[in-house]
């Protein structure tokens, strides 16, 4: 028993054949090869499978694929390709020991990028509060919080192009 779901994944319209019981996380991994969507618990507790669904972060293991009919889904693959804020967070995570095994990292980046979109200059407490639903077993979190804050600082870095927010050189 399969259904057809039409949705956009990272800007491309796709038509998926899915079982009604298949989660969005599983369907994305199976049909779209979006490996950034990682399964750490499959019951919404760890945040490693976080994606954007119509602009809001969701845990894709808690959404059935058929519920995404007509939706715009964005994963870390998509944001890494075009979202300057997401890219800035990636770079910031890369240079500050903000991840170890990295399994949680894409989910962290998804949540952090949503935070920065809503609140461009959060303080450490806001970052901690927002990331409280994303579990990391390696770092002890301090370097992750610092990684997000560094991406905020990057917005005013002299090496940053004020027009685009992109880092031109360091």
């Amino acid at each position: 028993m399969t259904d057809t779901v039409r949705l956009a994944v990272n800007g491309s319209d796709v038509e998926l054949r899915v079982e009604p019981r298949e989660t969005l996380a599983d369907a994305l991994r199976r049909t779209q090869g979006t490996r950034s969507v990682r399964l750490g618990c499959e019951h919404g507790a760890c945040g490693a499978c976080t994606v954007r669904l119509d602009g809001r972060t969701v845990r894709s293991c808690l959404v059935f694929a058929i519920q995404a009919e007509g939706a715009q889904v964005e994963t870390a693959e998509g944001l890494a390709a075009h979202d300057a804020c997401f890219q800035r967070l990636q770079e910031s995570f890369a240079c500050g020991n903000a991840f170890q095994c990295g399994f949680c990292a894409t989910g962290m980046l998804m949540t952090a990028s949503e935070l920065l979109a809503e609140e461009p200059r959060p303080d450490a407490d806001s970052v901690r509060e927002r990331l409280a639903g994303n579990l990391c077993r390696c770092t002890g979190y301090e370097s992750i919080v610092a990684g997000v804050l560094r991406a905020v600082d990057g917005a005013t870095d002299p090496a940053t192009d004020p027009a685009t927010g992109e880092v031109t050189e360091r």
Partner: protein
Amino acid sequence: MSVRRDHASIAPQRDSVGETAAMVNLPAALSGAAHYVNDIEPPGTLFVAMLRSPHAHALVRGIDVAAARALPGVHAVLTGAEVLDRAGPHPVYWQLTGQRTPQTRAMAVDRVRYHGQVVAAVAAESRALAEDALELIAVDYEPLPVVATVAEALAPGAPLLVPEWPDNVFGEQVYGTGDTDRAFADAAYVVEEEFDFGRSFGAPLETRGCVVEYEPVAGRFEVWINSQSPNRVREVVSEVVGVPQARVRVRIPAVGGGFGTKANYYGEEILACLLARSTGRPVKYVEDRDESFVASSHARQQHLKVALAADADGRIVGLRGDVVGTLGGELSSVGMGPVWLAAVSLPGAYRIENIRVRARGVMTNRSPYGSYRGWGAPKAVFAIERTVDRLARTMGLDPQELRRRNLVTPEEMPYANGILARLDSGDYRECLSRVEALTVDAGWPDTIREARSAGRRVGMGYACFVESTGIGPSRVMTAIGVEQAGFDEAVARMDAGGQVTVYTGQAELGQGILTTIAQTVAHELGLPPERVEVVSGDTDRCPYTGYGTAGSRGAAVGCEAARLAGVELRDQVLGLAADRLEADPAELVMDEHGVGVRGVPGRRLTHAEIGRAAYRDLTLAGDGFSGTLQGRAVYDPTAMTYSYGAAAALVEVDAETGEVRLLDGAMVDDCGVVINPDVVEGQLVGGSVQALAGALFEELVYDADARLTNPDFHGYRLPRTTDFPPLRLGHMETPSPASGSGVKGVGEAGTLPWAPALCAAVDDALADTGVFVTEVPLRPERLLEAIDGSGVATS
């Protein structure tokens, strides 16, 4: 220390990110580029699901898999009877003296001894379909009386979990030195306490998994597995499945955290091999999160009774310790090792002449007990440090003063404690003083004073630790009873293009071992670290590392083997260059541009020219040169190394709710020579937060029927961003004389001091009640009970 400066001057690879090139080389984990085991899916892959026992103890009288086999899309259903037929017993490689080992298989055959033990495995076209098939399997269980706790296991007339055994004890080990009876009889002070350390586990965010392909013509298994010990997995598959080691290739993809959980080997990878062979299709098994709670090694749970005897001046003269581990229904691959280590680690950093310790491992109907970062040490540190606090309280002495009087001093080192440990180097008292200085700098005394005058219950406490690192001298391993050597082999090659590649048996789990290996070898070759490639995680390509990446040995043993291979490669390169440049090797310098004669600018070779001479045009090399540039080294440490440290916790206790909150924490550690400060800090902070969560809320809770009651991340609480403040870290650096590089090892240090420091701080916050905390995790209800028991009104 000059070595440290040299290493530190080599920027770690990750620190170079931020330059333009970093955009191209963004770490794979930060996008969809990384391949974890669940991202590996050869064409035609079948998906495996395991049927797990709902009973903690039962006979399996029959199993009907006909309906499951008939389900379209199901390719195979494997039961215990077939495993018995197609595979050998599952080995336990920690075979301590005095340890009985029940024979077990990769899945239950006719009896289950823990909730969650595998009784059947299905391979099907999808995971969901495989799980559908599980529901069609009918197992005829005959439930047996359950042994849920150590008390039940040791009670007279307890059900015998292995009917052929006289009792439910796996075994015991006793170690001693001096005359403990006399020391205790003559002592001015004697204290004795009993402690409980709760059951928890590593819980890496990525569960265990493997993908296995079988090539029938060659008879070869290709295994992808997120293991910390690829060579062990290869050997075990070979032994159990009955195929030559040369026909088993084990590869490690990106690994989503290990923490010892993935250092053990398990039955599931054997079942995957059997299913791959019988179906002729690649098979993938990835543990569900709820399965991981019963199927990945449990750890930590021990009961420890510790007594200390001291003379009138507060010199500790005697230690008695009795450690009982709540092991599971079968032994994990490390046997009762973590219980043994807790017992022999009890003397810690102290000078104690009369010691007697006993370790016992008791079988219960719980999940198997294996490795988790810190192994036996966190329990030992907890028990000894708490007992020292108790002794100080009894004597009316400041606990830190009591510690200072008994910590082994640098002048006494190397200090053999009489029961295995030989403390190699360091200044334990200075370390404690530095932690005290951190707390003063941070204003803790004022904070406490102000908080208390405002009616808040705030307190601070300390703990010291020493840990054996750098497992391990191979002959010591054998003497202990470990059927696995502890050396590392490494290979360093310069290829025909002049590029250097290091091959290691170490596994990258996110801790940064590949970066530190690159730094270490690059340092020997005069190269920036990004010019050294490191290849790991492939038993066909990489050298042998039996024990793998565990026991705080990656830097101490793995890096040192790589360094020695790099030195050998350097000597070969210099030899070739000396011939070519007609110079004495001693006159040559090796740097990022190649090899040159010191002080003669024109006389030099680039790496590319050296590579060409060694591989493609041997007329450019000396007459005796026979081709290739490859250093190979085996490093077997001559002794264990001993890292150490101390920590302090500042806590607030809510006496109404029993809630404990860490307000601040400080730790100073010494892990010998530091190769990469960022990596060390990452290990310390990560391990510390695991330990803090373990001391406050992580606990696997069993019910009276020995069923795990909280097998998910809602019921088993991992630490979150909002739980703990940033920790204050200080660092000392004393090279170990026992290792060539002076490196000791740091992977587990963070897990050690926090439980006792936190409990001491809680005692301090509740000083008027006389509470003395003896159990972790420090759940609010337990603390309230202790406060109520004190009879002091706290509101």
